[in-house]
């Protein structure tokens, strides 16, 4: 498990980005739920933590694809692939993320940049 932040430092309606590779973001919804997903939009290099959080969905800050925080599914173009979801655990006021073991769906421009580089 990776520690993300103190729960007290992540107000409702906000997101916290973990600068790991690939980055992961934890979202605290207006209803008080916590979700973690891959931070990079599957269409292009944009940080979903900078996006528009509404209910259990986050809209990419650039091109309006919306991702379901619960499932990672994407609703509308230009993105076509889901983001990974990660398990969130809160212990003693700290938010932890347990990373998915699936392969991430990175956008083509990043995937080609990473190809050949360290995993």
């Amino acid at each position, binding site marked *: 498990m990776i520690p993300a932040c103190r729960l007290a430092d992540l107000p409702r309606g906000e997101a916290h980005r973990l600068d790991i590779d690939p980055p992961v973001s934890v979202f605290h919804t207006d209803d008080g739920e916590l979700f973690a997903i891959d931070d990079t939009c599957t269409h292009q290099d944009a940080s979903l933590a*900078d*996006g528009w959080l509404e209910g259990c969905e986050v809209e990419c800050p*650039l*091109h309006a694809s919306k991702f379901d925080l619960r499932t990672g599914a994407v609703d509308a173009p230009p993105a*076509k692939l889901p983001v990974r979801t990660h398990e969130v655990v809160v212990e003693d006021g700290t938010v932890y993320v347990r990373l998915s073991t699936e392969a991430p769906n990175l956008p*083509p421009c990043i995937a080609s940049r990473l190809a050949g580089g360290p995993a």
Partner: protein
Amino acid sequence: MRTVAVVGASLAGLSAARSLRKRGYDGRLVVIGDEPHRPYDRPPLSKEFLAGAIGEADLALERDDEDLRAEWVLGVRATGLDRTERAIRLADGREIRADGVVIATGAAARTLPGTEGLAGVHALRTLDDARALRDELARGGRLVVIGGGFIGAEVASTAYALGLEVTVIEAAPTPLAGPLGEAMGGIVSALHTDHGVQLLCGVGVKGLSGERRVDAVLLEDGRSVPADTVVVGVGARPCVEWLQGSGVALDNGVKCGADGRTSLAGVVAVGDCANWYDPHTGIHRRVEHWTGALERPDAAVATLLAHGATEPGAPRPAYFWSDQYGVKIQFVGHAAGADSVTVEEGTTDDRSFLAVYRRAGRPVAVLGMNQPRLFTRWRKQFTAAAS
């Protein structure tokens, strides 16, 4: 309704087809497109695709597992709409009868008269245009872009990154003054000169020189700008000629209500060809933005399926973006009518700032350069205030 024809197979047409199925329409669905391709995404054509960073498969708008149960009639143009027979006439002589029609025929790049047939002269609108231009840019050399609007600026930025020597020519004193206003248009278009791309403003183009292939752009002030390749980015015109005499009222595209309805029952229009009534400002606006083509078809389809008995919801304020020289440019609202523009965060010199346009103290538009997080917050507030 037993048959719905969607005329136009780009983002607006695809969004309409998706919306029809999502709203439970179970009848025959025919999607007609004049290009031979399945729906693809156009914004990357001037950016990542032109740069060679992504390929054609990456442009597909449909998901691999998506099945809209549509008949795709591609590579053939619609030439007429017969209101009495309720039929779409196609260029190959076929007719498709439909109870409901979604007009999504988009817009076509404007051209310079007298430049047809001259090699090295390109427009950029379609995948085929982009393929041809990409091959041409790979030869390197001097590129002259006629038109300092978004398409022209993005092509200039991509060509600069590919190592070409680039000149941008803009007839107006300031590029992008229409969408961004004079002050911000000047700041955003300074990205060209930041990178050593030559920007010539306030001068019109008289013509092109060259025998079989273009060799220079001739300006109205007598100057001549040498060119190996020329891109003409002087805007687009709505593709509605095929509707002449159909009974569908035309005025800068298809004249529509706030919900996409046209002057003919059972016919709605969406995307770049549609001049929707804007309840915020009380005027009609033909919005050529990607997000409009994505979002508005759902309202038009609701109108179509309800036989016009819908209350149009307020559309989200117009939003568009551009990527130039590695800078993300985002804009929401309408700059026209603003009486002030103030930089609220960052500085224009750093090309990283957020500016708010106001009219009588009320925000009417927001511009961000390399400020996606802050811009998104403003866009959220702005959209909430408008609805």
